């Protein structure tokens, strides 16, 4: 995947570039908003990562300019800690996702993967299948083999989110945002307890485990 990172801070840029390259991505860097706009509009990138605070042209204006220039690549905004307004403004301005600084690389990588490999049709798919686990998004039915699995509405949403990202790590924060619409950090283990409930329901009777915990990163669902 070819990624453009627009980031003025050298240390952050080096950290992100190194991590993403090790994860197999091709990363280009622009140091300010104007260079970012020039490159984003003139070249073809699969993903744009824009810092909110940039010299010259700030990230939000850059985002709007990029969208106005007809660039439809997914955009991940990096916002400062404690700036709710930035998140709202970023999403309204056409960003696909946002990440609050300082972030762990695992969090960034998970979001980059979720954005980059998102296939346009994927959201429309009604039947999600992993090994012998199936989830029918229309009829809201979950089956493991021949057994139907009874899930609470929120548990269903959680499993759906994992299955939409099958094979890719989904972080705790991503799940809080997408399943519960929580844009704050709850002090308790909401995600963990829900995951263990789902596991208990779908892994009954010694079936091979499908949902895996990736330490320090999040969860991934994949075929055994």
């Amino acid at each position: 995947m070819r990624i453009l990172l627009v980031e003025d801070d050298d240390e952050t840029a080096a950290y992100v570039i190194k991590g993403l390259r090790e994860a197999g991505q091709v990363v280009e860097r622009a140091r300010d908003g104007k260079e970012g706009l020039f490159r984003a509009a003139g070249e073809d990138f699969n993903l744009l990562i824009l810092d909110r605070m940039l010299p010259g042209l700030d990230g939000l204006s850059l985002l709007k300019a990029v969208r106005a220039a007809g660039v439809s690549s997914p955009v991940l905004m990096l916002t400062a800690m404690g700036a709710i307004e930035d998140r709202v403004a970023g999403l309204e301005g056409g960003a696909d996702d946002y990440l609050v600084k300082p972030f762990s690389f695992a969090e960034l990588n998970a979001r980059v993967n979720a954005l980059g490999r998102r296939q346009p049709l994927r959201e429309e798919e009604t039947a999600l299948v992993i090994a012998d686990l199936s989830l029918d998004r229309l009829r809201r039915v979950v089956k493991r083999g021949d057994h139907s699995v009874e899930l609470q509405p929120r548990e269903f949403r959680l499993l759906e989110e994992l299955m939409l990202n099958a094979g890719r790590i989904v972080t705790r924060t991503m799940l809080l945002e997408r399943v519960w619409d929580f844009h704050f950090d709850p002090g308790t283990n909401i995600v963990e307890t829900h995951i263990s409930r789902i596991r208990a329901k779908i892994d009954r009777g010694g079936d091979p485990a499908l949902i895996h915990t990736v330490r320090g990163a999040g969860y991934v669902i994949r075929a055994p």
Partner: protein
Amino acid sequence: MLAAFVLAGAAAWFATRSAAELQIRERVQSEMSALQQEMQLEGLPAAEAAIRARMETPGALEYVLWDENGSVVVGNLYIDRPSPGWSFVDLPDSATMEEDEEDLLVFAQATPNGGLMAIADDLLHAERVRTAMLSAIFWVGAMALLLALGAGFLAARGALVRMDALSNALARVGAGDTSARVPEGAGRDDIDAVGRSVNQMLARIDLLVTNIRRVSTDIAHDLRTPLTHVRQNLETGAASQDIAATHDSIAKAQAGIDDVLRIFAAMLRLAEIDAGAARSRFARVDLAALVERVADAYRPDVEASSQSLQIELSPVAAIDGDADLIAQALANLIENAHRYAGAGARVIVRLTDTADAVRIVVEDNGAGMSAEDRARAVEAFVRLDPSRSAPGAGLGLSIVAAIARLHRAELVFEDAAPGLRAALAWPKRDGAVP
């Protein structure tokens, strides 16, 4: 004022001087023409008699009449023959002149018989009149000045004393004593009104400063523990020869830094909420759906610690607000109940709409809070119980309070007997939430 007085005095001096002289000249001249006429019509002896008669009159002018030979015919003015017209003549030796070199103002005119008549007035008279007049002006002026100053002082004295008190109180606050207050008078004048406003402002500043101090202390406490752990873990990792042990230390240090960052995030969130910008994007919030979504999220957690969670929803009036922030406030209240109510407790999350308010209530039947703590919780919103040592626990309630303020709602803590009842209440006016 003094300058004005001096100027007026100087002006009076010159004005009176020329006026007095002018007056003398007029008097002397009219006397001269009267006597000349007398002499012309009645003859010399009549004029002589007239002069004599006039000399006897008290306060009269001084006269002298010379004949054509230059001998004095009559008169009490002992001077040499002057030339006709106006002149000043020194009186070399006169009891009336004292040390003053002030002279006589003399008017001489030839008589029809070839003699010379002179009439004079002592300028000292005029001078005395003038001095008397000026001293009268001076004393009247001085009295007026003193009276004005005295009256002004008496009138201003009260105000000055009160302004001093105001200024002293502000100086004390400036020096760091935020408990200083302006003495409040019962009056309804400007100074009392200012004093009351200043006191209200000072009370608000005092509360804010106290809160900031407490919150700062709390944050410092909250940060000290994880930062100490980070340092210890990094030292251990740096000293270790074993790669696995080093990785373990680094992972622990990272967890510590995450704790620190969480506290920072909470502080920044608090500051952002208090800045009030979120109010500009308030929208209709479906409280029932929100309460269910948030409370439901905690069900597994609550049930995992052998507590129970009960959600009671009733239809409520519409509220304008920020759904994300209300969700966070409710989440914090549920976490608080979950964390401190103890094992086996029942947590009830309730949405009610009564005549006076729309309320989101989180109630538990745990240990509860003492009346003092409940009062303090509303007042200060800092960590209540030192034993409640979870990082950021104090900030959690501070954030709830800030979100309530932002929404013009009230955060209330009540005794649920047993347990604690925390409520976010949107007061109604005229049966609706404004």
